């Protein structure tokens, strides 16, 4: 168990981080006083006014970069348009104060609304695309907005921008502005912190980890991405508004896409994996910019580039991951030489320890489940899934042709067939990842033909994938818990503490699939077999009535296979699940299935009890024959 503990997130690193956050808060409060003390001590080299100005700048940049990190760090979206919403915030304040002669503070209230509105509309366009195309589209949007700000002389002042803003008298003092900015920044950070820890934030993490899986646990991925894009734009608007208030200007360059380097560099500097990382990054950045950048502008760009490159290549965690880095370094030095071999995790320790058992199983005859061997009489059970004349063609290739299938309530139904028989395509049609060319699918009395995959997941069809599909950097418990949040539509709530909701229920479920002791481990560190078990747990967490398993034992050792199928049978019995699975391993098929459908070249060849299928001469010819011949 010591090995296991070494892998768990360290509570100590956490404590150090909270300590740093508290230190940061106190420092921010004391900046004006410290600046004054420093000026008194070194009147020639330090100007308190300038120091306070820089601190204001750091706070605003920190707020801006934190809002950027809602996308980069929490959702895994790279936007090149974030500078545009910052610029829009600054222009909102400038235009209200300058063109309409209103109080600049009203402008600050309007800034998030305007920037958020722009974020929503442009986000709608950008999110037509995913990943790289999304990034490129944000670039285009940002350049469009820049061109408008640059060319619309009457409203935005064109390439000159708007300068010498008038702000209310009570705000004109440097120290007051600083405290005002600190208060607004603190409020915004608090709001964002609530959002990222909420069930809504949990949905974002799930999307960052695995878009496809997030969709199959019932999240409407695009809607969440649009929501966080808008929210990030809104807070960028606040940051931009604050910028206009302390620097008293707005100009088109603020919106230019290269300005976007700032939140990127700052977020990476501080660490994208931590909430306050970008704030720390902003402090470092402001220092670098004013003490390196002022004197060596060319070298400054090179230094920034080198920092980003270093973070990308060496420490994707940024500065905030340093506590963990040092703790790891220390434990490495303390460790005795013989322990060093235990670097990699073997969570499937049981499997290894039971090598003997594994050999025994591999050599023994087919394990037939007694339940499956019962002769199947006329089946009185209700039909849960009814597939009717389903077809799918890709261009000229017909992958699935007029397939009809009835899966009974509580059945364990296998689909077999040689490679290319259309099994995976059929599964994709049932789960909504592909749209059928013809035919219908009815589930639980409802027609679900052509529904989006997340709606079908909600309707109660769970799926384990051919390629293991989990949220690798979330803990095992979070995998299950966040899936429950998603399925029960709690993830629309942007407040509350996601990790406290359904925690017990998730732990119980993990106990029952045998993953209890790994619940705090990152799911990606589990062995292959345990990851499949986790997938099952996720499907159960989704309240699935029907479980689709696509080659559940692919890539498993004989021992793992046996364990996995035992688990599947036990869970199906305990929780009254219906199983539909495809599998190449005939031991697994005949050991588990109660009904078997044989597919060949996209069609259903025959269907019946395992015994009937075994004795069908056609099946023997096309499938079992092949196997026996090759055996």
């Amino acid at each position, binding site marked *: 168990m010591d090995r296991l503990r070494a892998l768990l997130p360290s509570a100590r690193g956490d404590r150090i981080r909270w300590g740093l956050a508290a230190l940061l808060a106190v420092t921010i409060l004391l900046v004006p006083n410290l600046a004054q003390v420093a000026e008194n001590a070194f009147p020639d080299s330090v100007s308190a006014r300038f120091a306070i100005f820089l601190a204001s700048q750091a706070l605003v940049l920190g707020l801006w970069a934190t809002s950027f990190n809602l996308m980069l760090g929490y959702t*895994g979206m790279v936007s090149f348009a974030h500078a545009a919403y910052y610029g829009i915030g600054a222009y909102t304040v400038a235009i209200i104060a300058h063109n309409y002669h209103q109080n600049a503070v009203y402008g600050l209230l309007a800034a998030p609304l305007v920037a958020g509105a722009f974020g929503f509309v442009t986000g709608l*366009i950008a999110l037509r695309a995913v990943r790289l195309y999304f990034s*490129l589209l944000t*670039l285009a949007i940002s350049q*469009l907005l820049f061109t408008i700000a640059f060319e619309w002389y009457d409203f935005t002042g064109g390439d000159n921008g708007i300068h010498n803003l008038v702000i209310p008298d009570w705000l004109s003092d440097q120290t007051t502005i600083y405290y005002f900015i600190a208060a607004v920044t603190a409020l915004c950070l608090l709001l964002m912190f609530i959002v990222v820890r909420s069930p809504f934030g949990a949905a974002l993490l799930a999307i960052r980890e695995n878009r496809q899986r997030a969709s199959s646990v019932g999240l409407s991925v695009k809607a969440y991405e649009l929501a966080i894009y808008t929210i990030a734009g809104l807070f960028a608007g606040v940051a931009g508004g604050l910028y206009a208030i302390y620097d008293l200007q707005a100009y088109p360059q603020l919106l230019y896409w290269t300005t976007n*380097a700032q939140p990127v560099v700052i977020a990476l500097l501080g660490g994208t994996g931590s909430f306050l990382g970008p704030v720390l990054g902003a402090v470092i950045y402001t220092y670098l910019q004013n003490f390196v950048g002022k004197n060596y502008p*060319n070298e400054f760009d*090179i230094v*920034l580039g080198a920092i*980003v490159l270093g973070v990308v290549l060496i420490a994707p965690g940024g500065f905030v991951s340093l506590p963990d880095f040092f703790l790891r370094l220390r434990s490495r030095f303390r460790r005795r030489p013989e322990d060093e071999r235990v670097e990699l995790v073997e969570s499937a320790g049981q499997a290894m320890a039971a090598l003997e058992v594994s050999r025994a199983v591999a050599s023994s005859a087919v394990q037939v489940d007694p339940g499956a061997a019962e002769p199947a009489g006329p089946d009185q059970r209700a039909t849960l899934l009814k597939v009717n004349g389903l077809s799918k063609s890709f261009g000229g290739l017909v992958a699935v042709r007029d397939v009809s299938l009835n899966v009974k309530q509580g059945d364990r139904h296998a689909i077999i067939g040689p490679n290319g028989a259309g099994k995976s395509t059929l599964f994709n049609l049932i789960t909504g990842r592909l749209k059928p060319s013809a035919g219908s699918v009815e589930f639980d009395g409802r027609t679900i033909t052509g529904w989006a995959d997340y709606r079908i997941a909600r309707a109660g069809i769970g799926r384990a994938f051919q390629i293991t599909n989990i949220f690798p950097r979330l803990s095992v418990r979070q995998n299950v818990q966040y899936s429950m949040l998603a399925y029960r539509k709690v993830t629309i709530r942007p407040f509350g503490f996601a990790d406290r909701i359904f925690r017990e229920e998730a732990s119980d479920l993990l106990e029952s699939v045998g993953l209890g002791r790994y619940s705090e481990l990152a799911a990606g560190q589990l062995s292959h077999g345990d990851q499949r078990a986790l997938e099952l747990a996720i499907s159960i967490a989704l309240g699935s009535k029907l479980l689709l398993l696509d080659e559940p034992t692919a890539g498993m050792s004989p021992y793992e296979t046996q364990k996995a199928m035992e688990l599947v049978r036990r869970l199906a019995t305990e929780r009254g699940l219906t199983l539909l699975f495809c599998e190449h391993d005939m031991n697994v098929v005949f050991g588990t299935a109660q009904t078997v459908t044989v597919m060949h070249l996209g069609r259903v060849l025959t269907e019946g009890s395992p015994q009937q299928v075994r004795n069908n001469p056609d099946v023997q010819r096309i499938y079992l024959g092949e196997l026996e011949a090759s055996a």
Partner: protein
Amino acid sequence: MDVGNLVLFFLAGLSIAAVLFIVTAGLSLVFGALRVINMAHGSLYMIGAFVSWFVIVHLANALFGFWAALLVAPLITAIIGAVVEIFVLKPVYGKEHLLQLLGTYALTLIFAGLVRKVFGADVRSISAPAALNSSVPIFGHGFSVYQLFLIAVAVLVAGGLYLLLNRTGLGRNIRAAISDPQLLSTTGVNVTRLFTIVFMIGTALAGLGGVLVSPTSSVDPGMDSNVLINAFAISVIGGLGSLVGSLVGAVIVGLILSFGFAYPPTAHYAIAFVFAAMVIVLTIRPWGLFGRAEQ
């Protein structure tokens, strides 16, 4: 505006498209095979232009200098490309795509700083080589021979790339890498080296574009981001990873820019039209006109 003017703007648009095609083809080829968006592609174009300026001004007389630059600059950017691919991209293959974006983004900052440090921030200009520095009459207007030369070079590059991809073993491997790199590695092809070669071809094209554009526009440290934006727009319109897409996209963008700048009321917004076209195409076909839908 008479027919002569229309033809002239059309040809001018094609000559803009010529350089943009050469640059974008490099970007697109790299994306197709490596699945990496090289944010530093514009920087290599800029480096190509600065090398061209250096060779022409310092190393030889204007006639010989340009032709020397045409060889030297792509060679230098290809070598830089090899270094970048080996030390920056190899470590992040197979990781999250955002690391690749951010890693090459870091390079744009480094290259921009280096160029300004070495060459200063001055705006420079080069004249076209004497042999091409004249104009021919077209519909009663003079049209620069050099711009016709650009169109011819782009046609040659397009033909060369077509032959490379469809008539050589290297090209066959590249096409295989575009469709399935994992499968390719199991057939005994050294995919690691193939990727380096593809990236070098891509950056050589960026450098070539930089040399070609240098007599027609100013050579200055801001040219990296300008060309990058246009190349992105083109590859998004045409579809990332498709050479035909790059060609069609480049012509669309070249014509939009040429005609957009032609009329005073729209001149300021010409670049906005490019992005509007990009938004329209992506809204209808999110993977571009000739691109493949991402999985």
